[in-house]
């Protein structure tokens, strides 16, 4: 339960995901989220903070990345690792990526918003539309004529 500890470590905040799982998170980590920060400022966070839009597995991911992000500030190795993880995630499971992105957006965590955007940027870099479609499992709903026209019009992007 949330209580002010007498040690030097920070306060613990209790959060509950949409599927009912309860998390205990250090205040410093939780405050990365502007949503939680606002809730605490408005003093409506005395008890367990409900997060109706975030499921437990996704919330795990968010916390993990928040922590890593805090650690990596001056650690280039970690930075690289974190960036490459994104590629893995996008390749193996684009759906989780979008869920994560949604959660990050809902929790309003700027550092992770930048990170997830970076993942996508790295992932898409230099790939052709056809390859992107294949990897992200996007259904091509253009007619052949439409596709030809669009490719022609945007030819500059393929140089």
């Amino acid at each position, binding site marked *: 339960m949330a209580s002010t500890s007498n040690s030097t470590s920070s306060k613990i905040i209790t959060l509950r995901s949409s599927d009912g799982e309860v998390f205990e998170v250090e205040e410093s980590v939780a405050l990365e989220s502007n949503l939680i920060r606002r809730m605490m400022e408005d003093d409506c966070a005395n008890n367990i903070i409900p997060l109706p839009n975030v499921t437990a597995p996704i919330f*795990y991911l968010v916390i993990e990345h928040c922590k890593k992000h805090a650690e990596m500030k001056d650690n280039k190795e970690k930075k690289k690792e974190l960036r490459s993880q994104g590629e893995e995630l996008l390749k193996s*499971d684009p759906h989780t990526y979008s869920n994560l992105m949604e959660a990050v957006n809902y929790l309003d965590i700027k550092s992770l918003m930048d990170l997830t955007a970076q993942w996508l940027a790295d992932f898409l870099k230099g790939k052709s539309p056809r390859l992107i479609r294949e990897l992200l499992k996007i259904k091509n*709903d253009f007619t052949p004529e439409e596709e030809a026209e669009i490719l022609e019009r945007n030819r500059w992007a393929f140089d």
Partner: protein
Amino acid sequence: MDICTVAEAKKRAPNDEPDIGDDIWIEILSRLHPKTLTRLKCTSKTWHRLASTAILHSQIKSPISGFFIRRVRFSTRKESIRYHHLPTAAGQSSCTDHTLSFLPSHPHTTILDSRHGFLLCSSAPDDMRNNYYLCNPVTRQWVSIPQLRERVLGKTTYRYYCNYFFFLTATLVFDDPSHVSSDQYRIYRFVRFGLGSAIDVRSIEGEDEQEEEDTNNKGYPYLCVDIYSSETGQWTQSKASLKRRRRFFHLLNRPSVLLDGAIYMLGAPHLLLRFHVKEECFEFIDLPCDNLDMIAKQAKAPNDALSCLGLREGRLYYAYQNCRHMQVWMFDECEPSKWVLKHGVELQVFGIILDPPFVAELGCNIKQLPMKRVIVMMDLLVYFQYYDSSLQA
């Protein structure tokens, strides 16, 4: 605390289409490079829509590092544009299409205004500038603004026709520039009602010149404002108008400047016209000038000096050059004269001596000016235009 790995986090089957809100995607996508976005755009209809919206925002984060020069040839009044790249900090984009050849108005495009990396362009003057395009020069995205064909003045409807309307300048105003996903904008277009040539199109036959003259004297406005809103996709007519004054006055064909909710436009002789966007009203402000310009004025010199407006660090600047000197003034309403001289240089420095009688042809004489120096001087202003003199002779 348990840490869940990426693999453990996968629970649900992958989904084909993005099922999260568009706003979130646009937020993410607008952080991507325009090139990447364009490739993504080519994958499917959903992505085409999302990336097209995001692409309009992406410029806010990576403005182009360069500028467009609008050239006007004195002999033909033909305009052309050219992009000049300025190599600066990394991360800034370059414009690969130096003449905006992707616009339908190419090669007769005029740039009317620029804001947040967007250009407001129109087709050449002989097209009556009734075709407006909003474009992003980096991504080559553009939208065509619907045309407005008629205008009601008093009880009469006039068609926008060559001879009685002149589209002077237009200003692009974003409703909320601080917000990334705000793509609502308005265009303020300033229209001059033709001097002595205002003809009611509905009764064009059998109307002699005398009557036309009368119509004009009945207090028809000299200047009126059309406003286009991207939200409604419609043009509306502002109630604001400027009546013809006894005093000789006309607006110059120069880009306007938007500052603190007001649009500033240069007029001649030596007047600055301010249009308050919210209140929709006009106001005149005197421009600084010296005795020589007074002589020029009496001699009815065309457009007197070379001049332009600019914006720097939230202040309005006015640069002008007459036959004697070149000056840059800063607008400061707290000052009694409203203007503070920031820079000034005598043209003699460049070895140029112009006699006052030549004042009327000053524009032609600028070819004697070393262009580099002019650019250094004008660099104080964000935007400038120069007259292409090399082809005059």
